[in-house]
């Protein structure tokens, strides 16, 4: 498959900027913000592959995030495994969980799958919270050598990795199958697409990267409450970010996450959680009126702008990626 030159160049520039940013302009506050942004992007894109591209809305990504974070914490901090081992392991732990769930759950109809995954995340959260009621800490030896920048670059790397793999999947035949399932799963089934296989692949991707996000978070946070790792916010904020940005698009997760973080910052000093009200309202608008989110809105604006100037444009397909 070809990767367009324009995209490569643009990504390269963005990557360069992001690499240089903390060294030149970064303050502690903004670097922290970016780390959370990267984690949100990873989670949002994970949700997007399963929900936006394959049409399987999951409400339980917090479970994968939590397992990933917990695994990393134990493997890296408690049992002293090297990070290069612990981080992928946290992704794999999440995949193992995902497989256990996926095999029965993927046969359920949309809404039941959604609330089923939600229930699962809740069960895990409560159970973990009961087993580990106290906050857990990074061992002191590592606290003294704690470098915020390494967390930043790790987050950046994993986010780029997520984005890259997502791109490859979507542009491949696997992505085609996923979108077919999303658009009309009965038709896909009768055309010979193995529904379960592709839903499962989608789930593997989603759980793996959610687990990685958890690992990054465990690497980043000095102290965490284990039950908090399974809090619904790790499912819902990325979900809404991906949807508002544009579910079923590659950039949607990124744009939505940026929007979310910005809104959060704007409200931090005034109404605190108030940003969720605005974001919730935007989310509802997207569901009801703009299914392809901000990406679609920006394309519509661009289109009407082009029409006014009279620029001939290539044939426009719908914003959602189509095979």
């Amino acid at each position, binding site marked *: 498959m070809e990767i367009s030159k324009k995209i490569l160049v643009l990504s390269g520039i963005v990557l360069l900027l992001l690499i240089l940013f903390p060294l030149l302009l970064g303050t502690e506050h903004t670097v922290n913000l970016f780390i959370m942004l990267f984690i949100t992007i990873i989670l949002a894109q994970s949700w997007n592959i399963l929900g936006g591209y394959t049409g399987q*809305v999951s409400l339980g990504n917090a479970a994968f995030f939590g397992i990933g974070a917990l695994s990393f914490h134990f493997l890296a901090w408690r049992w002293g495994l090297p990070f290069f081992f612990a981080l992928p392991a946290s992704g794999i732990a999440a995949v193992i969980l995902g497989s256990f769930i996926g095999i*029965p*759950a993927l*046969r*359920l*109809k*949309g*809404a*039941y799958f*959604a*609330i*089923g995954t*939600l*229930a*699962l995340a*809740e*069960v895990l959260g*409560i*159970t973990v919270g*009961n087993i580990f009621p106290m906050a857990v800490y990074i061992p002191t030896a590592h606290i003294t050598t704690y470098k915020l920048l390494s967390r930043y670059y790790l987050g950046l790397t994993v986010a780029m990795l997520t984005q890259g793999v997502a791109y490859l999947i979507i542009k491949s035949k696997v992505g085609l199958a996923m979108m077919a399932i999303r658009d009309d799963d009965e038709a896909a089934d009768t055309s010979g697409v193995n529904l379960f296989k592709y839903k499962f692949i989608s789930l593997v991707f989603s759980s793996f990267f959610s687990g990685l996000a958890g690992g990054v978070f465990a690497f980043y946070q000095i102290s965490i409450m284990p039950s908090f790792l399974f809090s*619904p916010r790790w499912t*819902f904020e990325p979900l*809404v970010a991906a*949807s508002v940005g544009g579910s079923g698009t590659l950039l949607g997760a990124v744009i939505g996450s940026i929007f979310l973080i910005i809104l959060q910052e704007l409200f931090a000093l005034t*109404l605190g*959680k*108030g940003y*969720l*009200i605005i*974001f*919730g*309202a935007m*989310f*509802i608008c997207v*569901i*009801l*009126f703009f299914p392809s989110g901000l990406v679609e809105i920006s394309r519509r604006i661009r289109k009407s702008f082009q029409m006014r100037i009279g620029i001939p444009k290539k044939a426009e397909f719908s914003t959602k990626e189509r095979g």
Partner: protein
Amino acid sequence: MAQVIIYGIISGAFYGLAAIGLSLVFGVMRHLNIAHGSLIMIGGFAAYWFFHLLKIDPFVSIPFVMVILFIFGALLYKGLFSHLDKLPEGQKIDNSMLVGFGLIWIIDNLATLLWTSDVRAVTPSYTGKVWQVVPGLRISFVGLIIIGIALLVIFSLHLLLTRTYFGKAVRATAQDRDAGNLMGINVARTYLIFFALSAALAGVAGVLAAVNYSVHPMVGFEWLLKATIILVLAGVGKIGPVFAAGVLLGIAEGISVYFVGATYREVVGLVIFILVLLRRSMR
């Protein structure tokens, strides 16, 4: 042990009331309004303010709370959910779930801003009153009222759906919407009223929650989980099974608390839920 059963029945009656609105709307209109829990929360706060500002007994305030929630539910339907009516069933369910979810954010966080996240409860003078039925078997006054209200609701809903033209119209349009229109039924308005009614029922549950348990702005999510468990256990659209499932859940929780302690109480319902779903996925 019999005490456990009694508490289970009281919890069950409450769970049934919490779930009945959600179940009816899902059964008739195929809207999965997961903000239902937040509506319960609003009902609870309304009861709290009626009690603390106007000194109105919570059970007396029920009709007023119902009116408030009825209007609010009608606005929600007219403004938001009605846009989804034209979608095919699968999409309608998914999208209404997502809309409900956005609503949770808006309602819960607005409530936090307005009322702070403090926990509130309504404690009229009779809150602690308990009767000894037989030695070793106690039942609280509030608990009896809850059971009474649940029975009243079951009875009224049954009458509404089987004896009135409105109720028949609701049942008919649930089976075939276009045919309903062809009978001269204003289906859009019927749905509006029915949705608002389910919100009013959430309000009733909210009042009871404020008296028997407590409310705070984020409590809606917990009630929603309970209601969803009941929804899946009871199947869709029939009134009786909803309350039966509620009682079952209440008793199951009571038993687990008796043997394992309170920390895993919430898990019981969720695990039952997951098991039911698992069985469903095997078919």
